[in-house]
C-alpha cells in the first residue's frame, strides 16, 4: 500500500508539472511537441528490455522483444523527426 501511495504521488505531481510547462509551449511548436512526446512515450522501452530476462518464460521474452521493436520506432522516429522539424524553425534569420 505504501509503495502504491508513493507511486500515485509521483504520478499526480508529474501531471501537475506537465500541465505547468506544456501550457507555456507556443502553438507554433505544438506539432514538434506531439512528435517529441511520441518519442517520450517510447519509455515503455525500459519495461520491454526488462521483460526479456532469461529466467522469464519464453512467451514473456517474445512479447518483450516485440515491445522493444515498437517502442524503438517511437524513440528513434520521434526524436529524429522532431529534430528535423525544429531545424526548420531554427535556420531562420
Amino acid at each position, binding site marked *: 500500500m505504501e509503495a502504491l501511495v508513493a507511486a500515485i504521488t509521483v504520478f499526480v505531481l508529474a501531471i501537475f508539472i506537465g500541465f505547468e510547462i506544456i501550457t507555456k509551449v507556443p502553438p507554433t*511548436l505544438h*506539432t514538434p511537441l506531439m512528435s517529441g512526446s511520441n518519442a517520450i512515450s517510447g519509455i*515503455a*522501452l525500459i519495461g520491454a528490455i526488462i521483460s526479456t530476462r532469461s529466467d522469464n518464460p519464453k512467451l514473456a521474452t517474445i512479447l518483450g522483444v516485440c515491445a522493444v521493436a*515498437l517502442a*524503438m520506432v517511437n524513440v*528513434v522516429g520521434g526524436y529524429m523527426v522532431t529534430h528535423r522539424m*525544429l531545424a*526548420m524553425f531554427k535556420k531562420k534569420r
Partner: protein
Amino acid sequence: MSGFLIDSGWVNLAYLVASILFIRGIKGLTHPRTAVSGNLTSALGMLLAVVVTLLANGLDYQWILVGAVIGGLVGGVIAVRVQMTKIPEMVALFNGFGGGASVLVAGAAFMITANPDVQTTVSTGLSGLIGAVTFSGSLIAFGKLSEILPGRQISFPGLRIFNALVGLGALACVVWLTVDPSAIIAYWIIVAAALVLGVTLTIPIGGADMPVVISLLNSYSGLAAAATGFVLMNNVLIIAGSLVGASGLILTKIMCVAMNRSLGHVLFGKLGPSADGPSADDVYGGKVKSTSPEEVAMLFDTAQRVLVVPGYGLAVAQAQHIVREMANVLEARGINVEYGIHPVAGRMPGHMNVLLAEADVPYDKLREMDDINTEIEQIDVCMVVGANDVVNPVARTDPKSPIAGMPIIDVDKARTVVVVKRSLSPGFAGIPNPLFAADNCLMMFGDGKKAITELVSALKEG
C-alpha cells in the same frame, strides 16, 4: 525492481535524472530558439534510462538488439522520409505503436509476477485496456488521415450501446483478473475487447475532428505507459507517461476550444445546432465578385500591411513555397507581410506552422488568431488561401449556425479580402460563407499554387 549489476538505488537515481532531462527537454520547447537543444536533452534522458536498464541481470541482449535494430531502422526511415504534410499520419501511427508497446510490456510483466496484488492486477488491466484502445484507434485515425479509409463519419444504430457493453465486458475482466490472478487469459480478453473498442470509438469520428482525435490518442499513449509504470513500479515510466498524458490532454482541449466543440460531441459524432440555414444561392446570388491575378497585383500597389490566412487547402495545393515567394516580392517593396494562423488550420495542432516553417517563413511572422484579430482593421489586403470555415463570419453572427461561437479569424474586417479558392464549395461544416459575397471581398478562383504563381508573375511585371 531488483537484480541489477549495480545497486538498484543507483538505477533509480539514474531514472530520476532521466525524468528531469525529460522535463527540461519539454521546457526547451517553450521557445523556438531553445527547442532544438530541448529535444536533444530529452533524447539524452531516454539514452540514460535505456543504458541503465541494460545493466539488469540476465538480459537477452541478442534478442534486444534484434528488436532494437528493427524498430530503430523503421523509425529512422520514417523520420527521414516523411513529408511535412504527412506528419499527422506519422504521429497517429507512432501513438499506436506506443500503446501497443505498453500492452505487450504489461502482459509480459504480469506473466512473471508471482502472486500479484490488487494494485498490480488493476494497473495491468488498465494498461492493456488503454494501450489496446490507443493501438487500434490510432490505426483507424491513420487510415482516415491517409485516406485509406473514408474520412466521413461512419456509424450504425446501437453503436453506443455496443461500445458500452464491450467496455463493461473489459472492466469485468479486470475484476476477474483481480479475483483470479492466474487467469492470464482474462488479460488477453481485455486486450481483444479494447482493440474492438478502439475501432468502434474512432470510426464514427469525422475528418474535420481528426486534430482532436490525434491529440487525445497522444494523451492515451502516455497514460498507457504510466499505467505500465504502475505495473512495474517504475517511476521513470510513470513520470514520462504522465508528461505525455498531460501534453495530449492540453492539446485536446485547445483543439476543442478552437472548434467550439465539446469533447463529448467530438467523440460521439454530434454536430452543433443545425437549423436550416440560408442556401448557397441566397447567400451568393449575384453578389460574388471574381477577380484576376493582375487586378490583385494592382491592389498591392497601395497596400502597407498584408495578412495571409492559410488553410489546409494551401497544403493540399502545395502552395506554401509560392506564397513565400509572393511575400518576398511584396517585402522587397516595403510591404509588411504576416500570416494569421487559426489553431485548426492544419490537420493537427501546430501543423500549419510547420508547413510554413518548411517554406522558410520566419516564425515571428506567424501570428496567432487572438493576437491578429486585434489588429485586423489595419490590414490593407488579406489573402485567404485554401481556408473556409475558419474565416466564416457566420460563427460570430448567426447563433443557429453549426459553427456558431467557433473562434474565427475576422478577415471580413480587413479593408480588402482576396480569397484564393477553387470554387464556392463549402468546407467541412457544409455551410455557405457570406464572406465570399461581402462588399470588400474578391474571389480569385483556381488552384492555389497556379493562381498565386500567376499573381507573382503579375507582380514582377507590374
